[in-house]
């Protein structure tokens, strides 16, 4: 996994609430057996018209957000199905960071496993960021994971919270499975005890 330390990039505004994983990546794209290549299909029904051409009104199709790597959006982002295809698609589209007032649980977890940083901020700060991203699309937003700050030039700076373990995994680009296998002795002890305690398992 690619480590996440600092990101300085364009932020795209997507002011919708309850964006579910069906919106992020519709089911017809779940037949893939790979993790990559989903970017062109992300937000498919919003992004393309019925005839398959890009919908010029959809914000992520606007040229000013073409290179955006930060997505600012509404509450309960990533709700619905557990498909990890959602963060894969977002990542493949170029986003490394999503900022929202709240996230659905599984999506939030899935993001970290793919080197995407999901940031939760109070609604008022989201409103401010959203407005900024809409009014000054070219201005860059800087995210510093080590310091846990989001800044936009000298306009503002917000702090954000993040779980310590997840932060260190992202910073180091660490593989969860390797970390867990270091505790193999604990797992073995647990399994041995299980045989006595719950023989029906």
């Amino acid at each position, binding site marked *: 996994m690619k480590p996440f330390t600092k990101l300085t990039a364009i932020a795209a505004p997507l002011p*919708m*609430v*309850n964006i*579910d994983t*069906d*919106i992020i990546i*519709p*089911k*017809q794209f*779940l*037949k*893939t*057996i*790979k*993790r990559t290549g989903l970017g062109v299909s992300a937000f498919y*029904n919003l992004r393309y018209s*019925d005839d398959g051409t890009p919908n010029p009104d959809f914000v992520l199709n606007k040229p000013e957000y073409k290179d955006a790597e930060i997505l600012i959006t*509404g*509450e*309960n982002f990533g*709700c*619905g*199905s*557990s*498909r*990890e295809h959602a*963060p894969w698609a977002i990542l493949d589209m170029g986003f490394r960071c999503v900022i929202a007032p*709240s996230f*659905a*649980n*599984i999506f939030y*977890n*899935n993001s970290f*496993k*793919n080197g995407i940083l999901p940031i939760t901020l109070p609604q008022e700060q989201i409103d401010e960021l959203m407005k900024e991203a809409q009014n000054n699309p070219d201005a860059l937003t800087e995210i510093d994971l080590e310091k846990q700050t989001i800044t936009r030039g000298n306009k503002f700076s917000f702090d954000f919270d993040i*779980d*310590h*373990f997840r932060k260190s995994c992202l910073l180091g680009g660490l593989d*969860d*499975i390797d*970390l*867990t*296998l270091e*505790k193999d002795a*604990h*797992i073995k002890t*647990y*399994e041995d005890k*299980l045989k006595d305690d*719950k*023989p*029906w*398992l």
Partner: protein
Amino acid sequence: MRPRTLFEKIWDDHIVHTGDDGTCLIYIDRHLVHEVTSPQAFEGLRMTGRTVRRTENTLAVMDHNVPTTSRAETKERGIMQEDSRVQISALEKNCSEFGVQLFDLFDKRQGIVHIIGPEQGFTLPGMTIVCGDSHTSTHGAFGALAFGIGTSEVEHVLATQTLIQSPAKSMRITVNGALSTSVTAKDMALHIIGEIGTAGGTGYVIEYAGEAVRNLSMEGRMTICNMSIEAGARAGMVAPDETTFAYIKGRPMAPQEGNWDKAVAYWKTLPSDDGSTYDKEVAIEASNIVPTVTWGTTPEDVAPITAQVPAPTDFDDPNKRQSVERMLDYMGLTPGTKLTDIPIDKVFIGSCTNGRIEDLRAVAKIVEGKKIADNILEALIVPGSGLVKAQAEEEGIAEVLINAGFDWREPGCSMCLGMNPDQLEPGERCASTSNRNFEGRQGRGGRTHLMSPAMAAAAAITGRLTDVRNMA
């Protein structure tokens, strides 16, 4: 010892290791696998040279992407789409290579992953159960801690039989009193989501309690736990009791003779202790629940069937008002229309929410001796598993349904998500027993109204949304 909740007991019992920062490594007792969210996980194992740690605790099935029409034993096996075939073959190959038991397309036990687990006795009280699918919450009906995970976590569980987790908050939803006649677990689930909202459960594990929950069958309990995810919760659960034990006893993978008493003794220690506390408590009066349908494109947009389509101005929150406008436009509905005046085009009965035998019996009861309305283009019944299908055929239910004009299909997820050819066309309106009414969920431009099996059956007969209590 301090009084503990059902969730806390299961959690404590599964901690393998606690890190300095409070992050826990949790042991996973059961892992269910299906074709859509697993290929990348197996590929990950292959690339790192890892194996599946506990093959006997892992069970795979194909369900999301399978045809529900006849499955001839040809090379194509009735799967018309090349990419679907590739995904299904990938699961077969992965299971045989890694030694995981698979219920394939020709296995009588094949069906929706959340139906077959309980059916086989693979799902038991007190367990931690995961699957790369959000509706894993279904298994919580047995008093298990069951939740959906992403593909990276699927790989993690395959390789280590554990997951890295941080503790959840707890919520108890108590449904007091008894449900009225013709009001079902599905109505209860929709009503609850309407009350607490689609994000109301975010970060929580919900325990359902109270007389109305206790009185539900296992099928009904699975329906409410299934839809916990639609309220944003990590999981839903119901404490195990005699109803639970009676359901499990004798199932193929359930504890056998010598171990049965030991298991039951343990299961009886699981219900929350008197005096245990929750981070949040919600009380619902069962008598306030009536047959309920959704009118919008999130599962919280529900209304009693006796109501009318709401107007955006009925909502105080400006964000919600805006989204209601968008939803009504998508759903093609005009504020003020009586819900019972809304005609429908298709009916879908099935899914892990309502694809069990009890659901099919409820449908048969309504449609027996009747015919589906002329304006109904398609009325699908997709049993949740091969065993449900066989039982319905044996009980004569299948015949009743077929005579009424329903299309009797092979088991799978089908039009719940429309990954296979079972889909809505743009603009088509469906009375559906599934769990999600998101835009495009059942087919691009399709319009979904969620409801109970009995309500969907009533709609099939009259051709419009109908109060099942008015059906003779």
